[in-house]
């Protein structure tokens, strides 16, 4: 059973703090993704990674960075959290190749106050 695990279900952080969201998958998937999910806006891709130490910007990378030091772990970093980054963050992973299923974590609800 594929597992994508996000380290926190709920987080509350202060404006200006550096925030780390962690995601771990146990299926040896090459590709990993970070999305934010907002009502009426759907899922928007922040960053994705197709290999260790590789990363590519998605549609909304501003204010975020990522780290992929190990294949199973993909971290999303908010360098200086702002209130407009309050959202649900979803991590996903896929194996390589066409038409592969994406497996999602349970989500992290981040509130920046």
């Amino acid at each position: 059973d594929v597992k994508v695990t996000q380290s926190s279900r709920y987080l509350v952080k202060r404006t200006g703090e550096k925030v780390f969201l962690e995601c771990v998958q146990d299926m040896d998937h090459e590709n990993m993704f970070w999305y934010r999910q907002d009502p009426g806006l759907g899922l928007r891709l922040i960053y994705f990674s197709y290999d260790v130490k590789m990363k590519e910007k998605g549609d909304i990378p501003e204010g975020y960075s990522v780290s992929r030091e190990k294949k199973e772990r993909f971290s999303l970093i908010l360098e200086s959290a702002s209130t407009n980054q309050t959202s649900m963050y979803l991590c996903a992973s896929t194996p390589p190749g066409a038409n592969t299923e994406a497996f999602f974590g349970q989500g992290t609800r981040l509130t920046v106050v």
Partner: protein
Amino acid sequence: AQRVTQPEKLLSVFKGAPVELKCNYSYSGSPELFWYVQYSRQRLQLLLRHISRESIKGFTADLNKGETSFHLKKPFAQEEDSAMYYCALTLYGGSQGNLIFGKGTKLSVKP
């Protein structure tokens, strides 16, 4: 640029009625399209993919390249179908593909 369009934010039908959730895409290559579903308090999960041409939970979706559409259909909706539905497209650029989602349609099936 919007690559996947789901025109309806909310779709409300009665139990037993047919349902169609619309999805249009813009992509110049050969598209790989999916429908994902998120039930209340559950993870987002794959419902079906166009390459499989399968029916899952009574849902089907046909890729129409001429109309660039991948609408999701079910002839008789059930209350348990109430959920958020996302259409998604795999884009290939650089070395690997990334998965792009539409804004989602909330389906509400009334008793």
